């Protein structure tokens, strides 16, 4: 709710002058870089490598392993608008999340390992999104444009859970734990935009 009010405030304060500025015509190049203060929700199941048909445990990173529900993400985006109705966009978003010395409250099977109740574990989940798309404006006027886009996104997830090396504390979680799983997948993109 607070975040919704924050966004509404931003739109109210900056929206009118931004629209007025748009009357002079859109920019050809736009680069944005900054932070995203995100709420997370996740459900992860990594099956055994020896038998991918045997289901492991569905794990909520936040509820079962105690990951923070909020985290900061970094992003950068660039857009080029051509003289016709074309535009190109590339974007990169990344976040690294982990938890050290979490106590397992129910038996969890993650990849090839089972962690019993009371086990202390280190876990991490890193995600990266690399996007590129081509857009075509159906309507383009000095005040704005509306169109559709197609492209490719590359999703990269790395995650792992392992017994804690030091049950007495510590905050560093190695990305080289034995239970690693890495997924990289290109995904076709279709979208719309209004600007």
């Amino acid at each position, binding site marked *: 709710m607070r*975040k*919704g009010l*924050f*966004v509404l405030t*931003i*739109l109210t304060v*900056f*929206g009118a*002058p*931004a629209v007025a*500025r748009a009357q002079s015509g859109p*920019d*050809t*190049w*736009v*680069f*944005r*870089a*900054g*932070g*995203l*203060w*995100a*709420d*997370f*929700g*996740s*459900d*992860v*199941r*990594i*099956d055994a*490598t020896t038998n*991918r*048909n045997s*289901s*492991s445990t*569905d794990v909520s990173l936040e509820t079962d392993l105690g990951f923070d529900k909020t985290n900061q*993400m970094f*992003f950068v985006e660039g857009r080029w608008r051509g003289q016709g109705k074309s535009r190109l966009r590339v974007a990169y978003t990344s*976040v690294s999340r982990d938890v050290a010395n979490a106590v397992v409250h129910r038996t969890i099977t993650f990849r090839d390992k089972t962690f019993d109740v009371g086990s202390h574990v280190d876990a991490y989940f890193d995600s990266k*999104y690399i996007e590129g*798309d081509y857009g075509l404006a159906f309507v383009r006027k000095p005040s704005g444009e509306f169109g559709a*886009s197609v492209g490719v*996104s590359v*999703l990269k*997830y790395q995650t792992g859970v392992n017994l804690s090396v030091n049950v007495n504390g510590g905050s560093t979680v190695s990305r080289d734990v034995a239970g690693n*799983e*890495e*997924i990289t*997948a*290109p*995904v*076709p*993109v*279709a*979208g*719309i*935009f209004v*600007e």
Partner: protein
Amino acid sequence: MYVTWSGKLCVIGVFSGNVSEAALGVDYKLVGPVGIGGAYYYNITSATGKGTPLGGHITYRFNGPQVYGVIAFK
């Protein structure tokens, strides 16, 4: 002010997944080409597989406000 939405659906071998993301934001120029911006961003990913690149299932959602710097020029 800008609004974007994109949805992705892919089936590659034994892997299937989809991603939806949306953003609503405003850019404001301060000096010359330099400005600031704010947006609200939403992203949800769901992926399932039985082999490579994924054996298992991932549903991953994140959303929240963005604050950023902008450089824009003609």
